[in-house]
């Protein structure tokens, strides 16, 4: 009934597995192309422009990158010969460095907190696992902004912690170091992301074949050796996924630093937001964003390569 062109297309689709696969993927591919690839490409192009008042000078230039790495007046080769000089005009690079350090701290803390929770869920619970999983996600029923704001209430000058300490007579003056510093940002981000890490770790722990643990015990391993030699290596994929899931988004976070960071807790996300907004220098903002993304990609790549090598050696 259908016209010959359509019929042959139908036949082609039926014959080719690959084509069928792409057809299935096509809604997602189109979405990704429009919402991710195109904006990312636009960001790259923008980063080579310059801001002139309210307009863009569309001549392509490396000026924004030169500014980030303090290259102005020097060649790239000359700068690379003395890598420490890349940090001479420190604002962008060192705020980025500070953000990465804070994110790494958050990631380590999140894994340390989430792993025991996931372990408990996977190994200690016989019944009601679903209930526990739901309970763990309860904090996520409120928005991210509110969770960050809640920490402001908890850590605040006359907040929960300070009021309790004063009521207990442990201190007579509120502790001021709780809020408005990098520590407050780290605490807030850790709490905000813990539940994200529990789930992937739980899934990989849950998948571990219990007979392997029995075998390890039978062969004389104690509880600790068994954990180090069987459970931990086998749960590594989930743990790595959790680490990436936390590290990548927290580097660019700007909500938590804005609300609880005070004057010293600023992160690279705040700088980028200010460049696109107040400072009105979108091209420089784009360049800083791209340097941030590339740095995160590089770190993640190094991390994965390191983990890969470790696992190979273990095998």
């Amino acid at each position, binding site marked *: 009934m259908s016209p010959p062109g359509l019929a042959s297309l139908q036949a082609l689709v039926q014959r080719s597995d690959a084509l069928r696969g792409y057809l299935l993927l096509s809604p997602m591919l189109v979405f990704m192309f429009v919402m991710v690839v195109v904006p990312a490409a636009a960001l790259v192009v923008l980063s080579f422009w310059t801001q002139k008042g309210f307009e863009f000078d569309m001549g392509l230039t490396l000026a924004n990158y030169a500014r980030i790495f303090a290259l102005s007046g020097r060649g790239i080769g000359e700068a690379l010969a003395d890598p420490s000089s890349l940090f001479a005009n420190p604002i962008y690079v060192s*705020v980025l460095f500070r953000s990465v350090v804070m994110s790494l701290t958050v990631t380590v803390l999140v894994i340390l907190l989430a792993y025991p929770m996931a372990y408990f869920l996977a190994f200690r619970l016989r019944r009601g696992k679903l209930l526990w999983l739901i309970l763990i996600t309860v904090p996520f029923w409120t928005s991210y902004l509110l969770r960050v704001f809640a920490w402001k209430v908890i850590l605040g000058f*006359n907040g929960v912690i300070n009021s309790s300490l004063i009521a207990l007579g442990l201190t007579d003056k509120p502790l001021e170091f709780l809020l408005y510093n990098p520590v407050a940002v780290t605490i807030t981000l850790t709490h905000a992301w813990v539940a994200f890490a529990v789930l992937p770790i739980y899934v990989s722990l849950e998948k571990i074949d219990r007979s392997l643990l029995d075998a390890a015990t039978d062969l004389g391993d104690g509880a600790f050796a068994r954990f180090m030699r069987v459970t931990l290596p086998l749960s590594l994929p989930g743990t790595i996924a959790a680490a990436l899931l936390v590290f990548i988004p927290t580097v660019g976070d700007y909500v938590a630093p804005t609300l609880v960071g005070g*004057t*010293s807790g600023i992160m690279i996300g705040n700088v980028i937001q200010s460049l696109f907004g107040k*400072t*009105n*220098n979108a091209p420089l903002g784009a360049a800083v964003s791209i340097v941030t993304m590339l740095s995160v990609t590089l770190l993640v790549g190094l991390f994965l390569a390191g983990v890969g090598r470790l696992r190979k050696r273990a095998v």
Partner: protein
Amino acid sequence: MNGHDVRKMIAEGRLNRRDFGRLLASAGLATVSLPIAAGHAAAARPTYFTWAGYEDPDLFPGYMEKYKEGPEISLFADEQEALSKLRAGFSADVAHPCSEQIARWREAGVLKQIDTGRLSHWPDLFESLRAITGDADGGPQWFVPIDWGSASIVYRTDLVENPEESWQLLWDERYSGRLAIGEQSTDTMRIAGLVAGVPKENLFDMSDAEIAQVAEALRKQRPLLRFYWSDNTTMEQALASGEIVASSAWNSSYVALKQQGVPVAYMQPKEGILTWCCGVVVTAAATNLDAAYDLIDAMIAPDAGQQMITKLGYGHSNRKTFDMVGEQELADRGLPKDPTDFLAAGVFSRENKRLADLEQMFSEVKGGF
């Protein structure tokens, strides 16, 4: 054919195919057109893009009386950000920047000229405020003045004893960790400029050397600050709890804290108090001009002005407002009956020629450099 008929027809098996088709078609048409009609109704509400605190319907009672339903409200915390948002295509009909921004906004192409003939209260506004055109003197009008006031230091009288009347209090190491200053640069750059010793006449067109001086002052101040405030609520709460003892603030914060019974004072710094005038503009993208002008006219009416003075503690642009407010009420808020001399006596906010460089410098200082 009403619902009851249809049910009966179905029950009796009388609904033929053509009737059924007609029913489905009308239901379909209704479903499709409903969102369009609803969208149309929503579009009739103008959008008012303003600072937090100004969304109060008491500040445009005439409009509420006529339309029953208030305008759509969108808030900004910083005019630079508001401008970026408008330039990025955010569609607002009426926006609420301050006088020094108007030329910048006009050059950015986001404004429409104001037709003052459409504003019934326009002739009652103070002449000195009507003179702020947003263009060359005597040029076309781009701005309708609404509120005016000052900015100074609010401090706790019980925690700061007899301070010198000076902006230096925000640099006083004795109160390290218990001071705050605004994050928006319009005020903070003037304050830091005055403290750094930049001559008043250069404050809005600093030389590179003077910008470096200001940067130095801000760098010295940063470790002494508890935070840079971006919304006055955070700052007012911190003052009320004693977390901070002094902060830069507008007079509304002083009025609000005083009304809560917090022991605060509003300083008259010897270097000069800051003064400002804000008002509304019609954006170039405004689609809802009739409602927009009704909204503006309601804002400059004396009944709106009375609320402005009582609730927010700011002055109002309409001369007739001041016949409706008692002398004592004005004195409590530190407001004169006529803004002309008051605004000129302080460091009145004008367009800052070096704003972009100052913003860049300030963001670097905030980042710790």
